[in-house]
C-alpha cells in the first residue's frame, strides 16, 4: 500500500478547511462522535451551520482567531492508498509553517477564491511549491457557486495564473486546474453536473492518478547517510558491524562496490539487512543496515555511495536559503548546517541576492536575510558535506540551519 502526501495551502477564507472537511466527509473518514463534536462546537460559536474548519484548527488560538497558525496532519484512506494531508497556514507571517508542512509533499493544492482571483498569496504558494521541487501542483478554483459556475471567470483566473507561473515554473512540473465548490461538494469526490464545460476529473480523481515516486529511484545516485553504527558485541554477533540508515536516494544491490565518504575507502556490500531479513537490493526511503566485506572506519555522519557516482565533497557551498527566524541571518555569523543527519559548523560568507516573498522585491549583495526572505547565500564549512544539487536530487540536496545559541531551526537551504 502506498502513501500520497499532499499539502494544502490557503487561508480559511479560501475555504481550505471546508475543502478538507469535504474530502474527509465524502470518503467516510469522519466518525459520528467527531461530527457530533463539530455540531456542538459550531453551536457554541453561534453558527447555524456545521463549521468544518473546526475539525482541523486544533489550537485554542486558531479557533479564537479563525485562522490556521501551524500545520495539522490529517489522514484518510481510499480503496487505492493512504493519504496524508498537511494542512498549512496561508497567512504571510506563518509562511515557515507552510514550508514545514509542504516539504514532504508530492502534491501541492493551491486554492483560489473564484471571486478574488489570483492574488499575492497564490503567487507565494506557487513559489514555495516550486522552491521545494513539488512535482504536482493542483490549482483549485474554489467557491465557483458564488460566480454562478461561470466558465469565463474560471478561464480568466487560469490565464492570470499561467502568466504568473510561467516565470517560476519548473520544467518537469505538472500543473492541473480544477473548478470546485467545497461548500456544496462540486467536483470534490464526484464530477459536478453544474459545470459541464469542465472536462477533467474530480479533485480526488486527480489525486488518485498521481504516482508518489515519480522519479525512478534507479536513475538517481545511491546516497546512504550513516545514522548509527550497530556493534552488538554479544557472543552471537561478536564481530558484527552494521551501518544503519535510511537511503536518501537511489538504490543498492548486494555485491555493489561502495566508497565511504569522506575517507574514500572502498569495500563491497556484504549484506543488506532489514531486521532478520537479508535483501538483494533496497531503494530510497528504506531504512536498512548495510554490512561490508572489509572493516573500514565509518562513523555517524559519513556517507556510503557507489564507486564512480560520488558527490563532490564540499567545504564551500552556494545555496538558496529560506529564512525562518525573527532574528535575521547575518554575513559573517556562524551557524550549524545539518545536511540530512550530518551536522557541521558553518559561516555565512556572502548573501549575493535577496527576494522579499511578500512583495517579490529583489536586491543584490545584502548583509542580512530576514524572516520569510529568500536569498542566494554562500557558506564556508568547517568540514565536508556530501550534498547534491537540490533540483537534480532533492533527497540529498537540502539542509537545515540551526542557531548554535538558542538551538532553533532558523532556516532551510537548497544546494545549488
Amino acid at each position: 500500500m502506498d502513501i500520497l502526501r499532499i499539502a494544502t495551502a490557503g487561508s480559511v477564507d479560501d475555504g481550505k478547511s471546508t475543502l478538507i472537511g469535504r474530502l474527509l466527509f465524502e470518503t467516510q473518514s469522519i466518525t459520528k462522535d467527531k461530527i457530533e463534536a463539530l455540531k456542538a462546537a459550531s453551536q457554541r460559536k453561534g453558527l447555524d451551520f456545521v463549521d468544518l474548519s473546526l475539525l482541523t484548527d486544533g489550537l485554542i488560538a486558531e479557533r479564537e482567531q479563525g485562522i490556521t497558525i501551524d500545520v495539522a496532519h490529517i489522514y484518510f484512506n481510499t480503496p487505492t492508498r493512504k493519504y496524508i494531508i498537511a494542512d498549512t497556514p496561508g497567512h504571510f507571517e506563518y509562511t515557515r509553517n507552510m514550508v514545514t508542512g509542504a516539504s514532504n509533499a508530492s502534491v501541492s493544492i493551491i486554492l483560489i477564491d473564484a471571486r478574488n482571483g489570483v492574488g499575492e498569496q497564490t503567487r507565494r504558494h506557487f513559489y514555495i511549491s516550486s522552491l521545494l521541487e513539488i512535482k504536482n501542483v493542483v490549482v483549485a478554483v474554489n467557491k465557483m457557486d458564488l460566480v454562478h459556475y461561470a466558465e469565463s471567470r474560471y478561464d480568466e483566473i487560469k490565464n492570470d495564473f499561467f502568466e504568473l507561473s510561467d516565470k517560476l515554473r519548473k520544467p518537469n512540473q505538472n500543473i492541473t486546474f480544477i473548478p470546485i465548490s467545497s461548500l456544496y461538494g462540486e467536483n470534490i469526490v464526484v464530477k459536478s453536473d453544474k459545470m459541464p464545460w469542465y472536462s477533467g476529473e474530480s479533485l480526488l480523481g486527480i489525486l488518485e492518478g498521481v504516482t508518489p515516486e515519480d522519479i525512478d529511484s534507479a536513475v538517481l545516485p545511491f546516497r546512504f547517510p550513516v545514522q548509527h553504527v550497530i556493534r552488538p558485541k554479544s557472543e552471537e554477533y561478536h564481530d558484527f558491524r552494521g551501518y544503519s540508515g535510511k537511503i536518501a536516494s537511489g538504490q543498492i544491490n548486494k555485491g555493489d562496490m561502495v566508497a565511504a565518504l569522506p575517507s574514500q575507502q572502498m569495500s563491497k556490500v556484504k549484506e543488506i539487512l532489514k531486521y532478520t531479513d537479508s535483501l538483494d537490493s533496497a531503494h530510497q526511503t528504506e531504512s536498512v543496515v548495510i554490512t561490508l566485506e572489509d572493516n573500514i572506519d565509518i562513523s555517524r555522519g559519513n556517507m556510503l555511495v557507489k564507486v564512480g557516482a560520488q558527490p563532490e565533497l564540499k567545504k564551500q557551498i552556494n545555496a538558496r536559503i529560506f529564512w525562518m527566524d525573527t532574528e535575521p541571518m547575518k554575513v559573517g555569523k556562524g551557524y550549524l548546517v545539518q545536511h540530512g543527519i550530518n551536522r557541521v559548523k558553518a559561516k555565512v560568507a556572502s548573501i549575493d541576492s535577496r527576494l522579499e516573498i511578500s512583495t517579490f522585491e529583489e536586491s543584490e549583495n545584502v548583509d542580512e536575510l530576514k524572516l520569510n526572505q529568500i536569498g542566494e547565500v554562500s557558506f564556508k564549512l568547517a568540514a565536508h558535506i556530501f550534498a547534491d544539487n537540490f533540483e537534480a536530487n532533492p533527497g540529498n540536496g537540502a539542509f537545515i540551519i540551526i542557531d548554535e545559541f538558542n538551538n532553533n531551526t532558523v532556516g532551510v537551504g537548497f544546494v545549488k
Partner: protein
Amino acid sequence: MNINKQFPRALEDEAIFILREVAAQFEKPAILFSGGKDSITLVRLAQKAFFPGKIPFPLVHVDTGHNFPETTDFRDKLAAELGVELIIRNVEDSIKAGKVKEETGKYASRNALQTVTLLDTIEEFKFDACIGGARRDEEKARAKERIFSVRNDFGEWDAKKQRPELFDMLNGKIDLGENVRVFPISNWTELDVWNYIKAENLEIPSIYFAHEREVFDRDGIIWSDSEFINKSEDEIPYKTIVRFRTVGDMTCTAAVSSTADNIDTIIEEILEAEISERGARIDDKRSEAAMEKRKQQGYF
C-alpha cells in the same frame, strides 16, 4: 485483498529512522511504555531498528495505580522477555509526597496527575528524550505536534513556538534541563497500528479482545466497574461482552460493546467504526481544548 488491510511499510521505515536519530542525538533517551498497543508497537520498532543489537533505551511507566492488571502484567512480561530495563514510578508516591492532590467527585481520575510524576521521573533519571506512542490522528491538538517536540525545564509545550521540521531532518539540539518528546508513529492511524500488529504477529494484552466484564453505564458510555470509580446509587453494574479499543487508566478508559475476539475481527470493526478511538477516552471529553491544555503542562 482489501488495501485497507495492508500495512504501508513506508511508515515503518520512517519510524525506524526516527528511533535511530534518537539514539544518535541524545544522551539518555527512554521509551514511555504503558503496555498499550501503541507502546507495544514502539517497542517492536525499536527492536527492529537496533537489531542485532539490543534496544538501547529503558522502558518507563508512570503507573497511576489504577491500571488494568492485564496491562501491567503484560508490561512486566514483555520487558523481561526483551531483557530491557523497566522503570516504574507511581502516582501514589507523588500523592503521598504531597506534590499532587487526588481528585474528588464522580469523575475523579489520576490521569492528569501523571504529568507531575512523569516530570519528576524525567528529572530523576535526567532523561533528555522521551519516546511516546502518540499519533496525530488521535486528537486535533496532537495533529499539530512535531516529531521532535521540545519541552522547556517545566515540561511545557509551546504550540506557537514549535521548531520548523523540514523533510526528514530532525533537530534534537537542546540545552541542559530541557527535554524532547519524540513521536515515531506520528503519521500512523489506528488502523495502521492494528494492521502492523497483525503483520508482525505481535502479542497484545487480552483486554483488547472481547471478553465478559462487570460494567455500568454513565453518559452513554460503558465504564468498567472497579473500586477506583465513584459510582452513584443508580449506577448498577452488570455483566456483558466488551473489549477495549484504547487502554489508559481504568478511570478514563471506556469499553466498547463488541464481539471481536481476534485481530481480524478487530480490523473489520475499525474499518466500519462510527466512533473514533478517542471517543472512548473520558479524559478528552472534559472540554474541546482538554488535550492541548494538558500538553501545555507537560502531559505526554
